[in-house]
């Protein structure tokens, strides 16, 4: 359900930037949404089509990149991807890591005419 507020923010940032650039149409929005953010693409698409009607972003394609979750071991600094419930560092076998990727939630760019 947080997809609605997220999609509203996507639309409002997009319209603001497009208007500043005096664009007449937004054709594509490039988004970066990390695996961990729990945002479902289909929901964002659904809400976007609905709330962008009657704006210059109507019909814009949403292109979404999903950076995978990555951890950094606090002991040996190895960067690795967790594997299900196995979060131990593949190098030193410690389970003491911070999330370094997968939390992203931003608009990379928009394509306008």
């Amino acid at each position, binding site marked *: 359900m947080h997809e609605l507020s997220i999609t509203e923010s996507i639309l409002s*940032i997009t319209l603001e930037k497009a208007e500043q650039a005096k664009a007449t149409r937004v054709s594509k929005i490039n988004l970066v949404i990390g695996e961990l953010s729990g945002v479902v693409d289909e929901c964002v698409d659904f809400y976007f089509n609905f709330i962008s009607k009657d704006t210059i972003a109507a019909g814009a394609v949403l292109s979404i990149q999903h950076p995978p979750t990555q951890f950094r071991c606090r002991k040996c600094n190895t960067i690795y991807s967790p594997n299900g419930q196995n979060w131990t560092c593949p190098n030193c076998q410690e389970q003491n890591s911070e999330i370094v990727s997968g939390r992203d939630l931003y608009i990379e760019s928009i394509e306008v005419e």
Partner: protein
Amino acid sequence: MAIKVLTIQEDILGANDEKAKENGVFLDKKGILMVNIMSSPGAGKTSLLLKTVENLKSKTRIGVIEGDVASTIDAEKVSEQEVPVLQINTAGGCHLDANMIEQALKNMPLDDIDLLLIENVGNLICPAEFALGEQRKAMLLSLPEGDDKPYKYPLMFTEADVVLVNKIDLAPLLEFDMDSFMKAVKGLNSKVRIFQISCKTGKGMDEWYSWLEGELKSYRG
């Protein structure tokens, strides 16, 4: 017409984060410690609040903001304790956001409050993403939910300053692996404090109260 690419690189939740920062600065000026309490539905947030208010209200001036999708049941229970309480209904929304808190703060007797407890909407996903301007985040997990939750909802556990493991009185009936749970949470969040509690029996609650009082003391310098 030619297509132009505009680089944006802007956080989608940037507006909420900005508002949350403003709320935080405002509360700092007032000297109010705001604690955002988050959990799944049914983990015991309301019970935790009621017990906490009951135990601390003679020593600390407490206010409560109740977030729910609908109803005022929780606010009514809290108001029986005769502390200021405000109910926010999100009308279907799965989390509180910084704007809702800004409005709520305008409607609370802030000069009579030192500790402001927020009961967020029951949900382990969205509340972790939406900052409110709180100075501390408390996360409540109840034993029946299982020890695998940190693996499923890592963000929530990464963000928390304190994790309360509630319904510890049910331990003999359940197969909750506390060691594995602790290892997962502490691995993610090395600074987190974890208390095992039972709102029902009162076990471990003193540790939580002391933690809150300690945080309030250090916050107010």
